[in-house]
C-alpha cells in the first residue's frame, strides 16, 4: 500500500468475505462451553417466561370466575416465582456473556497488538499513527457485543422461528405459505438496503480514521501549529474532516434506520394478507375462523424474531466495517520475522562482516550496492558522509530492521537472518536519532534498556553519560515524571537519557546514530571520556557530523555513491587528501 495521509481514505485490500466471519469464530470458539451454557440458560428463561401468560389465562378462566381467593394468591405467588426464575436465569446468562464478550475483545486486542509489534518500520512510516491507534482501541471495542451476545441471539431467534414455524405448519400449511411469502420480499428489501448500508459504514469508518489521524498529528504538533499561526487553517481542515465524518454517518444511518420500519411494514402486510386470504379467498370452505385467529397471532410471533434478527443484522453490517479493518491489520505481512528454523544467537564477541550487500528501500533504487567490509570485535567504526548517503541504512541492516536484497551480513560468522530477531537485537545497543521518551519516570525510561536494572545501576549509567547531574537537580530526581512531548527535558537531555538507556543494556555491539548531535561540545567531551572506557570490548558504529566525535575511532568509513568510498584511520584518510580530508578541513574554523 502506498503511503497514506490524514485526508486520504485507506483502501481496503481485501473486501469482506465470510472467511472473516470464520476467523471471528476462532475467537469465540475458546469460549464455546460458556456460550453453550448461556444459550441453554436463555432457552430455559424463555420457556419459564412463557409460563406466565398461561398462569394468568388459567386464573382468568377458572380461579376468578370461581371466586377462589386462596388459589388466586397461590397463582400470583407462582407467577412471581416463574418470573424470578426467568430473571435469575437471564441474569446468569448476562453475567457469563459479559465476561465472554470482554474476554473475546481482550484476545483480539492482544493479538492485534502483538502483531503490530512484529510489523516493520515501513508499516508505521506509511500511515498516520492515529489510524493505527483507532483500530487497536475504538474498533475493537465496537465488535464486542456482536461477537458475544449477537451470536447467541441469532441462534435463539432462529430457534424461535423454527419453533413457531412448526406450530404454524400444524395449524395450516396454506396460510403458513402466506406468512412465508413475506420472506422473499423481506430478503429483497434487506439486500437492497444492505448494499448501500455496508458501503456507507465502510466510508464512515474511513472518515473517522481520517479525523483521528489529523487529530493525533495536531496534538503532537501543537507547538508547530502555534509558531506558524496555523490555528485557523487547521481548525478549518479539521472542520472539513469532521463534516465529512458527520455526512458519512448521516448517510449510513439513513439506510440503517430503514431496516426496522421496513420489517415492521412487511410484518403488517403479512398479517393483513392472512386476514385477506383467510377470510376472502379461502373462507368459508377450507378454513375455520379459529385457525385464522391462531395464524394471525403466530404470524406476529413469527415476525418478531425476524425483526430482532434484522436489528442484529443492522449492527452486524455496521461492525463488520470495523472487523475487516482489524483483520486487515492482523493480515499485514511481517516482512522481517524469524525464519522457521531460526535459532538463538549465541553470546557474540562482535566480529561483523558485510558480504556483497545490496539494498534498496524501493524497488530499483539501490541505496547500497555490493558493499563489503569486515569489522573485528572491539573495533570502533565511524560512518561519515553526506546526509542521505546510507549511513543509517548500514546500521539498520546490521540490526536487521530491513533485510538485504543481495549478499549477507554475518556476526561472528553467523548470518543474521538465520538467528532469532530477539537474540540478535538484545545483544545490540542501538541509539537512534529520535530519542523517544515514554511517559513515566526518568528511571523507568532508562530502565527500558534493562528491565531488571537496580537504581544503583541506573545511576551509574547516568553518571557515565553525564546525565546524573541534571537528573539529580530535578525536584523528584530519578522519579520525575516526564512524557512523550513534554517540555520538561531539552533535546540534549533527552539524548543523554536515551544514551543511558542504551548503555544500561550492556550491548556487545553499540550503534550510535547521531546520538550526540544535540549535546553541547563540553558535555560531549566529558561523555567521550566515559565512553572510551565503555567502548572497550564492544564493537561500535558511530554516525556523527561533528568530526571531533569520531576521529578517535579505529576506522572511519566514508559513505557515498551507494558504497564505501574511503576507509581507514583518521590519519590515513587525512593523508589520502580525499573526501574525508575535504570534510575535515571544512570543519576547521580558525
Amino acid at each position, binding site marked *: 500500500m502506498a503511503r497514506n495521509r490524514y485526508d486520504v481514505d485507506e483502501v481496503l485490500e481485501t473486501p469482506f468475505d465470510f472467511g472473516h466471519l470464520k476467523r471471528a469464530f476462532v475467537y469465540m470458539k475458546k469460549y464455546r462451553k460458556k456460550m453453550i451454557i448461556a444459550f441453554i440458560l436463555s432457552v430455559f428463561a424463555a420457556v419459564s417466561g412463557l409460563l406466565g401468560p398461561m398462569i394468568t389465562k388459567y386464573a382468568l378462566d377458572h380461579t376468578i370466575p370461581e371466586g377462589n381467593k386462596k388459589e388466586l394468591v397461590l397463582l400470583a405467588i407462582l407467577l412471581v416465582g416463574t418470573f424470578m426464575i426467568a430473571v435469575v436465569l437471564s441474569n446468569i446468562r448476562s453475567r457469563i456473556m459479559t465476561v465472554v464478550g470482554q474476554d473475546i475483545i481482550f484476545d483480539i486486542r492482544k493479538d492485534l497488538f502483538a502483531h503490530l509489534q512484529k510489523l516493520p518500520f515501513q508499516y*508505521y512510516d*506509511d500511515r498516520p*499513527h492515529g489510524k493505527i491507534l483507532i483500530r487497536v482501541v475504538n474498533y475493537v471495542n465496537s465488535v464486542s457485543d456482536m461477537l458475544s451476545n449477537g451470536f447467541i441471539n441469532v441462534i435463539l431467534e432462529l430457534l424461535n422461528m423454527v419453533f413457531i414455524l412448526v406450530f404454524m405448519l400444524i395449524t395450516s400449511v396454506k396460510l403458513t405459505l402466506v406468512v412465508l411469502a413475506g420472506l422473499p420480499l423481506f430478503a429483497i428489501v434487506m439486500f437492497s438496503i444492505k448494499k448501500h448500508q455496508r458501503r456507507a459504514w465502510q466510508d464512515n469508518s474511513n472518515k473517522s480514521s481520517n479525523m483521528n489521524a489529523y487529530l493525533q498529528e495536531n496534538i503532537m504538533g501543537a507547538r508547530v501549529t502555534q509558531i*506558524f499561526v496555523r490555528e485557523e487553517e487547521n481548525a478549518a481542515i479539521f472542520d472539513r474532516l469532521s463534516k465529512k465524518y458527520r455526512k458519512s454517518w448521516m448517510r449510513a444511518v439513513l439506510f440503517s434506520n430503514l431496516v426496522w420500519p421496513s420489517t415492521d411494514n412487511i410484518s403488517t402486510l403479512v398479517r393483513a394478507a392472512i386476514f*385477506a386470504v383467510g377470510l376472502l379467498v379461502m373462507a368459508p370452505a377450507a378454513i375455520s375462523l379459529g385457525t385464522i385467529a391462531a395464524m394471525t397471532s403466530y404470524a406476529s410471533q413469527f415476525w418478531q424474531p425476524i425483526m430482532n434478527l434484522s436489528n442484529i443484522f443492522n449492527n452486524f453490517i455496521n461492525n463488520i466495517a470495523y472487523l475487516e479493518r482489524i483483520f486487515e491489520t492482523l493480515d499485514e505481512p511481517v516482512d522481517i520475522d524469524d525464519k522457521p528454523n531460526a535459532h538463538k544467537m549465541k553470546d557474540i564477541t562482535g566480529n561483523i562482516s558485510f558480504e556483497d550487500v545490496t539494498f534498496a528501500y524501493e524497488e530499483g533504487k539501490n541505496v547500497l550496492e555490493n558493499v563489503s567490509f569486515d569489522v573485528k570485535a572491539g573495533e570502533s567504526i565511524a560512518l561519515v558522509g553526506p546526509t542521505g548517503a546510507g549511513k543509517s541504512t548500514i546500521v539498520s541492516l546490521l540490526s536487521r*530492521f530491513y533485510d538485504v536484497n543481495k549478499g549477507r551480513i554475518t556476526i561472528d560468522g553467523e548470518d543474521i537472518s538465520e538467528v532469532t530477531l530477539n537474540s540478535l537485537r538484545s545483544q545490540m545497543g542501538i541509539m537512534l536519532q529520535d530519542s523517544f521518551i515514554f511517559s513515566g519516570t526518568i528511571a523507568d525510561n532508562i530502565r*527500558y534498556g534493562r528491565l531488571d536494572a537496580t537504581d544503583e545501576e541506573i545511576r551509574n549509567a547516568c553518571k557515565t553519560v553525564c546525565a546524573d547531574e541534571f537528573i539529580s537537580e530535578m525536584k523528584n530526581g530519578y522519579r520525575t515524571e516526564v512524557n*512523550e512531548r513534554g517540555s520538561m527535558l531539552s533535546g540534549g537531555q533527552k539524548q543523554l537519557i536515551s544514551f543511558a538507556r542504551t548503555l544500561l543494556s550492556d550491548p556487545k555491539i553499540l550503534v550510535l546514530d547521531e546520538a550526540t548531535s544535540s549535546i*553541547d561540545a563540553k558535555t560531549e567531551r566529558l561523555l567521550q571520556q566515559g565512553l572510551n572506557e565503555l567502548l572497550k570490548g564492544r564493537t561500535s558504529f558511530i554516525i556523527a557530523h561533528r568530526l571531533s566525535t569520531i576521529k578517535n575511532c579505529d576506522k572511519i568509513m566514508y559513505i557515498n555513491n551507494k558504497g564505501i568510498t574511503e576507509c581507514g584511520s583518521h590519519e590515513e584518510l587525512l593523508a589520502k587528501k580525499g573526501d574525508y580530508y575535504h570534510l575535515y578541513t571544512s570543519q576547521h*574554523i580558525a
Partner: protein
Amino acid sequence: MFQIKWLWYSLKGYRKFYITALFLSLLCNVLYLTTPYFSKEIVDTYITSENARQNLENNRNGFIMLLVGMIGFTLLRTIMQYSCNMTYEISSQGMIYKIRNKLFERVQNQDMNFYDKNRTGDLMTRLTGDLDAVRHAVSWVFKGMVESASLFVASMVYFFMINWKMALLLLSVTPFIFVFTVAFKRVAGPVYVNLREKLSKLNTDAQENISGNRVVKAFAREEFEKEKFDNSNREFSAANKKAALLWLKFSPFMDTFAHTLSAVMLLGGGMFLINGTLTMGEYIAISGLIWAIANPMRNLGIYVNDLQRFMASSMKIIEIYYSQPTIVDRTDAVDSTERLKGEIEFKNVSFKYGKNEVLSDISFKVAPGETVAIMGETGSGKTTLINLIPRFYDVAQGEVLVDGVNVRMRKLKQLRRNIGMATQDVLLYSDTIDGNIAYGDSSMPEEDVKKYAELAAADSFISKMPDGYETLIGERGVGLSGGQKQRISLARALAVKPSILILDDTTSAVDMETEAHIQESLRNLDFNCTKIIIAQRISSTKDADKIIILKDGRIAEMGTHDELLKNKGYYYEVFTLQNEGFGKEAV
C-alpha cells in the same frame, strides 16, 4: 448537574431539532399504543364474533377498510418513527460536530503547560470515546428517558381513569424501583470514572507504543511492550466487566419488581374482580397495557447506568471545553499587522519552571537583521530562552521586547506571524513535502516552495525522490534521515519570510558542506531577518554578530567570535575541543 446544563448549551442551533425529535418520539409511542386496534377490531368483528360470517358478508367494505387502515397506519407510524430517528441523528450529530470542533480548537490553543500535563493518548480518548458517550446520551439515553416517562405517565393516567383503585395498587410498587435505582446510581458513578481512566490508559499505552515503535525494536522490547499492554488491556477489560456486573447485580431486583406488576395485577385485579370493584373489560384494558408501565421501570436502571457513563465522560470533555490557556492576548494589546523590523531585547529576564529558576537576569539586545548565536551546556536554558520570544512561556521577571514593545503587549498571532522557527524535535506532517514546506502559507506557489528548499539545501535530495515535492512523507518525517528532516523544517521556517528566524539546533544532523551552503543562504536572504541560532558546532556560530554563552541560566559570555576567543572561557574551550588536531596536518 452541570453536565446537563452544558449539554443543553451545546445543543444550541440544534435545540429545535432535538425538541421536535423528542416530541415526535412521544407521538410515535402514542401511535404504538393504537396499533393493535385494527387487528383487534378485525378479530372481534369478523372472526371471534358469533355472527362473524354474517358480518363479513354484510360489510366486506368495512373489513377491507380495516385492512387498509392497518397497513396505512403502520406505514404512517413507521414513516414518523423514521423521521423521528433521523431528527435525533441530525441534532446529536450536529451537536457532537460542534463540540468536536470546539475541542479541537481548544486543544490547539493551549500553552505548553497543558501539553506537559496531558498525554496524547488521554486527549485522544476525550475526543473519541468520551465524545461517543455524550453522543450516546443525547441520541439514546435522554430520548429513552423521555419516552419511558411519557409512556408511564400516559398509561398511569389512563389506568386512573379506568379504575383508580387498581391504578393506585399498581403505583404502590414503583417506589421500590426508585429506591434501587437511587442506590445503584450512587455506586455506579465511581465505577464509570474508573472505566474511562482505564480506557485512557489503554489509549496512552497503545499510542506511545506506536509512536515509539523504533525504540521498541531497537531494544527488542516487544515482549515487554506486550506485557505492558496486556496489563492495560486486562485492566480495561476488568473495569468493563466490573461496570457491567455491577449493573447485573441490581438489574434482577428491578426486573423482578417490574414483573411483580403482573402478579399484582393478577392478585389485586383478581380480588377486585371477585369483589366486583373491577369489571372484566377494565381488567383486560389495564392488563393489556401493563407493559407500558413495566418497561419504563425496568429501563430506568439502564438509563441511569448509561447516564453514569455519560457523566464520567462529559466531565472529562468539559475540562477541555472550558480550559483556558494562561497565555492569551491582553485586551489592551497593541494591534498592528505591519511586518516587524525584528529588533529583540531581553531586559533582566528571569524564568521559572515551577520553583526552578531556569533563566536569571538575562539582558541583551539584537538589532534588526543581526545574527545571534546561543551556545551553552545541555540544560543551560537555551531552548527556554528562545521560547520566550514567540511567547510560548511568559517571563517571571523582566521583559522581552520585540521592536521595542513587550511581547506580552502584542497580539500572539501577530507576533508569531513574524517569527519563523525550526524546533529541535522536528515534527513533520504526513503530507507531501510541498505541503510541509508550505505549512505557514498553504497557497504558496510551487516555485517558491522550491526556492526555500534550495535555500535550506533540501532541493537536491527532494528532486531526487521519485515524486519530488509531491512525495508523501510519514508522520514525524519518518522515512527521511535526520538531516533531511531538519532541512525540510528549515525550509518550512524560511518559507514564512519571518522578521525573526529562530533555529534551535537545526543543523546538528547536517553534514558540514551542507551546513556551509545553508549559512551562505541565511546570509543572503532577500528579506530582512534577525536570526537567532542555537548550535553546538563552532562552525555554525562563528560568523554571528553576537555569541551568547549560557551557563546555568545566566549569560556567562557575550561577544563576537574573536572577542570570545580572547576571553578564554567556555567558547574558547569548545573551540579548541573542536579544533584539536588541526594545525598539525590541516593548516
